[in-house]
């Protein structure tokens, strides 16, 4: 008997007892799929792919994470700095959350445009909305775990939403917190729930797919499947198309992970949570901004919370609000317009949500919030009553096969794609506007060696910067995340690292007598702090705590340009500005009154390599060193990114060729 024969017998043996093979074949191979699905239908499988990516990266991260208020932040930094490929896995997870939402939002808007919520797909739609709600809860709790400033204050603000509930609000909030504020019990339970919910989502996704396979996929024409001529088997047609889609998607995802890993986050979250100080500008992650704008649009606390939740819950009522028998927006000229206005409205909401709570953003948020509900409660019901829809094609197969198909054949993808291009332009504009606004802060932009696709550090510059830190900054600023062994990356030999470490003393102990003792530092020791504790540091610096510099470049808007501009930004006090005693005037520091006196002057440091030592040069060198301290993985990240993206281009091109070959006869 041949091997395949034996394999088949084994498969049959299993299948007769548990028809799992039949089930998989039924739902992933034979599943009859409309032959005319366009690329907007790729986002369902992409969302499934992202769920798996998030679970896999999350599991590995959870094995290294410590859910305790004193250790969570540092355990995340340990993942970034010490765990093998930890930075990669964390950036995949962190940016994966954003990518997941991009994919799911597009998936939802596709459903909105093509009427995928209409009979017989109501339950499918509702299950999808449940997934969306679960995702939001999971994402929110995940953002709390690194225990940065945005984690703590985001958690505080969001949990306080429940305090708007009449009578029992405060009781609910206390219950959520497990204390009188967001604290260790909150972090612990959020970690547990953040771990649990993805598996709940996975279960609901199974229901979603089950419901989908019962009612079958909708399609760009929105008409029912009339017979076998309208469908093709899922495999190989849509498996290869989905794989090609995953390839394209991975390229975008990887560009973020390898070159802009923090572009979608907030610098404040690289400052450890501090329950005594709120960051000046609290904003949720981008995917919550439209809902945040609706919350802020209503001047009443309870009404605002209700409006925010209603914005999502109203989607459950869509099958009734839009009762038009025609599903696809392609055949609804006015619905199409309303759809795009609604999409733009969501972007406007997101934009308003990102802005501070002041005019004109409040008015903008209010108008956009009003329109959001107007769309669902007035426009859609009126349209479904009065709109004159265009004639529907006979069948799915007809317009696809027929050479002289009616307009919808060409237009079914174009409707959504054309508008999407306009939208992309708007999105770029929205991103570019705040970037332009940053120009007003007078940051002195520099050319840094680590910028760009292939950017690397200049070791000699890092060593000079380290010298500046040791001779100047380290008198007041700690760098508690950096060990002496790390400076080997600056080009020092092992012996040189030992020598540098040995020139410091650290406190160790207790010894056999129970006494603490001093000893020379060794490479595995962290940089000693200039002060025994924060209060001592404050007392010695006029009440202001010199911030730890380990993450300073990542923790400030503007990054290296901000740090450089701050160091060189001291100026004589303008006559119209009053400074409190003990403060110095700085052009870029928020509020301009800084406690740090000017430190870097021309010739303040002599470099052994004879490099220029004017104030700007010294400031650039120390900024480079601090940049390295913030992102020691950067060179490895760029190098791996180049290889990964080149590979993805090749693999995706291959998938595209295979897809064209397989689809050749269907088109």
């Amino acid at each position, binding site marked *: 008997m041949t091997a395949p024969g034996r394999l088949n017998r084994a498969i049959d043996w299993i299948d007769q007892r548990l028809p799992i093979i039949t089930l998989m074949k039924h739902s992933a191979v034979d599943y009859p799929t409309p032959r005319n699905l366009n690329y907007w239908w790729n986002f369902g499988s992409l969302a499934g792919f992202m769920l798996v990516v998030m679970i*896999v*990266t999350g599991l*590995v991260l959870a*094995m*290294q994470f410590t859910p305790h208020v004193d250790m969570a932040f540092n355990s995340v930094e*340990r993942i970034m*700095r*010490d*765990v*093998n*490929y*930890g930075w*990669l*896995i964390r950036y995949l997870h962190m940016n994966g959350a954003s990518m997941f939402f991009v994919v799911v939002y597009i998936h939802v808007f596709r459903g909105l445009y093509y009427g995928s919520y209409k009979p017989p797909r109501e339950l499918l739609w509702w299950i999808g909305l449940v997934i969306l709600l679960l995702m939001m809860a999971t994402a929110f709790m995940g953002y709390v775990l690194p225990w940065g400033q945005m984690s703590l204050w985001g958690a505080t603000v969001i949990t306080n939403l429940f305090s708007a509930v009449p009578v029992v609000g405060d009781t609910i909030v206390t219950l959520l917190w497990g204390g009188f504020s967001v604290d260790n019990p909150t972090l612990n339970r959020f970690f547990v729930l953040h771990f649990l919910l993805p598996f709940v989502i996975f279960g609901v996704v199974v229901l979603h797919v089950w419901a989908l396979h019962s009612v079958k996929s909708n399609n760009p024409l929105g008409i029912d499947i009339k017979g*076998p*001529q309208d469908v*093709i*088997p899922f495999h*190989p*047609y849509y498996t290869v198309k989905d*794989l090609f889609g995953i390839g394209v998607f991975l390229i975008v995802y990887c560009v973020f992970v390898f070159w802009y890993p923090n572009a979608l986050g907030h610098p404040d979250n690289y400052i450890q949570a501090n329950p005594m100080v709120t960051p000046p500008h609290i904003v949720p992650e981008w995917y919550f901004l439209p809902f945040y704008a609706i919350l802020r649009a209503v001047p009443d606390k309870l009404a605002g919370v209700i409006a925010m939740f209603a914005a999502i819950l109203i989607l459950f009522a869509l099958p009734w609000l839009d009762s038009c028998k025609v599903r696809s927006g392609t055949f609804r000229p006015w619905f199409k317009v309303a759809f795009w206005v609604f999409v733009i409205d969501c972007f406007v909401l997101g934009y308003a949500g990102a802005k501070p709570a002041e005019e004109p953003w409040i008015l903008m948020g209010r108008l956009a919030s009003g329109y959001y509900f107007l769309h669902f409660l007035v426009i859609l019901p009126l349209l479904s009553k009065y709109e004159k829809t265009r004639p529907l094609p006979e069948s799915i197969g007809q317009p696809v096969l027929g050479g002289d198909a009616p307009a919808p054949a060409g237009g079914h993808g174009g409707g959504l794609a054309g508008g999407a291009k306009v939208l992309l332009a708007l999105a770029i504009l929205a991103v570019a506007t705040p970037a332009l606004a940053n120009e007003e802060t007078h940051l002195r932009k520099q050319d840094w060696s680590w910028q760009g696709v292939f950017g690397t550090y200049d070791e000699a510059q890092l060593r000079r910067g380290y010298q500046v830190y040791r001779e100047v900054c380290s008198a007041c600023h700690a760098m508690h995340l950096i*060990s002496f*062994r790390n400076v080997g990356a600056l080009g020092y030999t092992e012996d040189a690292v030992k020598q540098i470490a040995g020139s410091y003393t650290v406190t160790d102990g207790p010894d056999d007598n129970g006494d603490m003792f001093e000893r020379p530092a060794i*490479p*595995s020791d962290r940089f000693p702090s200039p002060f025994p504790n924060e209060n001592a540091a404050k007392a010695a610096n006029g009440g202001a705590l010199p911030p730890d510099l380990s993450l300073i470049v990542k923790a400030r808007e503007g990054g290296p340009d901000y740090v450089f501009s701050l160091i060189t930004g001291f100026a004589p006090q303008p006559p119209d500005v009053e400074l409190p005693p003990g403060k110095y005037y700085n052009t870029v520091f928020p509020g301009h009154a800084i406690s740090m006196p000017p430190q870097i002057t021309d010739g303040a440091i002599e470099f052994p390599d004879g490099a220029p030592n004017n104030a700007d040069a010294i400031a650039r060198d120390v900024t480079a060193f601090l940049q390295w301290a913030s992102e020691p993985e950067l060179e490895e990240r760029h190098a791996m990114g180049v290889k990964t993206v080149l*590979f*993805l281009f*090749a*693999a995706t091109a*291959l*998938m595209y*060729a*295979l897809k064209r*070959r*397989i*689809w*050749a*006869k*269907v088109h």
Partner: protein
Amino acid sequence: MADHAMNDAPKSRRDFLFAAAAAVGGAGAVVAVWPFVDSLNPAADTRAMSSIEVDLAPIAVGQAITVKWRGKPVFIRHRTEEEIKAAQAVVVDDLRDPQPDTARVQKPDWLIMVGVCTHLGCVPLGQKAGDPHGDFGGWFCPCHGSHYDTSGRVRKGPAPKNLAVPQYTFLSDTQVRIG
């Protein structure tokens, strides 16, 4: 219908494309697994602690200390003349894990070994004053009754191997680096 599409395509071209796409995709997936597996290996901070330096000066003849190395106890014993003689007098061929004493020490005065029983990982007794030393004057594992001699070799009981000797270097007469 669908079958037509499959069969009409030029077979060799499609097969080649399919094989190439499967090979590239599969290879990419396999390579992508490595970072996740490697992340479970010891991290850089753990690896940085993988060697320790010990000052031997305070350890008098006949005394022993236990230091922690890679999360495990390491026995350092300043052996007496009698203990050294006893260890060297053993007929090596009769041992379960035949090793002459000279293969287990760099300097006969100093016996340095990992204090973990080779049976199932308990810490043998024999370091502290008053501890039982077993039938051979060395160490005795209370879990399952393995006896070790003054060279840390197993002489009796279920343990299959002698106590392990870690890699170590004498930096000076009184300074040793383990690991």
